[in-house]
């Protein structure tokens, strides 16, 4: 089966400067493939080339060189656009139209019958939690509500592939939870999801694979468990009621103890040490166990390493 999204040496230069325009490489020979049904995280610091990549895939900008394909067809093909959805970063719609009108309008552009357009708009507004505000003009919406409208319009055609540019932007914690649940629901339906973000916890909780871009270049791409989380580099144990006499001896054994609050302590065991004997020892002295967690390499650590390796977090002048 061919890739859902494919880029081959995709490059974009912009001209910067008014009097003496000079080329500026925003994206440098990006080659990657996203398989059907994947939740693919496209990560990078601000200015890394994430939005440029999405704009190239949506043909909002044209490539300087290289090529991109979605569902095996060149980007920009109208038949491909019937099968994709796109949430731009910080979306904005028409102030004087209601959410229902905007969604019905967008649905009509796919050629659906008017009744179907209205039904799709209503269902999606309910799904993103705006059912009650559907007849309110968008100028009265908050940023988070507009973001939800943006997500709804990206789903109006039940897309096979959906592109989300910073989908959590502007959302409160409840909104973020809802969007995470929505993305997982789409994944279960078999939708390919390509989302760009600089919020790593979102990628960690949602993605099967991620790519990290920095300075307009692809720094790394791979499965999340291959990049982070495979190797356990220690244990974090939280206990309460630990006797002071015992605490004094831990430092000599290479165990770091940190007082949290109200008699609770966090202990960090080094790699190689097993948590069970330690927990048994403290429990025997009257302490109570609250939690035990393995310490992994986090995506954040991988991200920082890769961005540093790329040399610069900013794309460069040519």
């Amino acid at each position, binding site marked *: 089966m061919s890739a859902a999204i494919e880029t081959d040496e995709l490059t974009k230069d912009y001209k910067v400067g008014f009097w003496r325009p000079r080329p500026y490489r925003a994206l440098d020979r990006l080659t990657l493939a996203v398989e059907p049904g994947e939740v693919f995280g496209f990560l990078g610091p601000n200015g890394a080339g994430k939005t440029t990549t999405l704009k190239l895939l949506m043909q909002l900008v044209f490539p300087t060189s290289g090529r991109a394909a979605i569902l095996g067809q060149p980007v920009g093909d109208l*038949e491909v656009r019937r099968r*994709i959805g796109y949430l*731009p970063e910080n*979306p904005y719609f028409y102030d004087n*139209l209601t959410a229902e009108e905007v969604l019905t309008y967008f649905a009509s552009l796919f050629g659906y019958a008017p009744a179907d357009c209205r039904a799709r708009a209503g269902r999606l507004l309910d799904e993103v939690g705006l059912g009650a505000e559907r007849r309110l003009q968008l100028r009265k919406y908050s940023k988070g509500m507009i973001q939800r409208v943006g997500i709804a319009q990206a789903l109006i055609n039940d897309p096979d592939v959906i592109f989300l540019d910073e989908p959590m932007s502007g959302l409160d914690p409840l909104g973020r939870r809802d969007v995470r649940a929505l993305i997982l629901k789409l994944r279960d339906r078999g939708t390919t999801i390509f989302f760009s973000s600089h919020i790593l916890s979102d990628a960690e909780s949602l993605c099967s694979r991620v790519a990290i871009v920095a300075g307009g270049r692809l720094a790394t791409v791979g499965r999340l468990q291959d990049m982070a989380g495979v190797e356990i580099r220690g244990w974090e144990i939280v206990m309460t009621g630990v006797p002071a006499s015992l605490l004094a001896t831990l430092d000599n054994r290479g165990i770091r103890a940190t007082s949290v609050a109200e008699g609770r302590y966090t202990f960090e065991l080094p790699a190689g040490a097993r948590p069970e004997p330690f927990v048994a020892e403290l429990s025997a002295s009257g302490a109570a166990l609250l939690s035990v967690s393995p310490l992994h390499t986090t995506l954040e650590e991988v991200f920082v390493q890769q961005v540093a390796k790329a040399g610069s977090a900013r794309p460069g002048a040519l």
Partner: protein
Amino acid sequence: MNVATLRRIAFAVFRESVRDRVPYSLVGFALLVMGASYLIGQVTAGQDVKIIKDLGLAAMSIFGLFIAVFIGIGLVSKELERRSIYSLIAKPVRRSELILGKYAGLVFTIAVNVAVMTAVWYLVLGYMSWMETEAFKQSWEAPATDPRMLVAVYLIVIQLMLVIAIALFFSTFAEPLWAAVFTLALYVAGHFSADLKHFEVVVGDSPLRFITTGLYYLLPNMAMFDVKNAVVHAQPVPPAYVGVATAYGACYIVALVAAAVWIFGRRDFK
């Protein structure tokens, strides 16, 4: 080119435009001016109908112009500035369909606006005619609700369609403020383009002549669409003149919209 898509885009533009406060306030203001002109007519012996005809047509032209410019530049440049066009571009719509649909939507908006203004204007004139004695009406050059005045209204609509095309053209590559400035500048210059023709007589064979002649042919002759004086004074406007003015406007509109489609189809939305 999908006609159904054009229609849907045009309808969305119409719906967004008529809810925008600008047309409301401008149409309201136009109505206010017509009301005021009626009051002026009350204190102007014998000339009241002529004044209202004059002011009505002038108000339609000016307020239509502002609607055309300020909504027209918003069609593309404001959409780009606010990035509302991003979601639209990702739908199964050609860029050319977007431009043509938006143009059609604003033309429809302007047509409805002018139709409302015309209806109110004729109502005011009808009321005045109804209030006057038959003997007094004999002194008028033409009946107050002379249907021949619709020729002037028609040419105002053609002129406004041209202004929308100019605004659309500039908005495909210029910032909203500059697009507005360029459009208004071209509108004003277009009213004086006939003077450029006379200027070549003044400058003789100097190189300036080529510039003025070039400008004369390049700038749209806006004065061509202005037959207000003729209709107010009941002078006939030959159908051939209306036909030529329509064809002239259509040529400019086609050229400008085609250029807008060409530019819009190739530009990057950074």
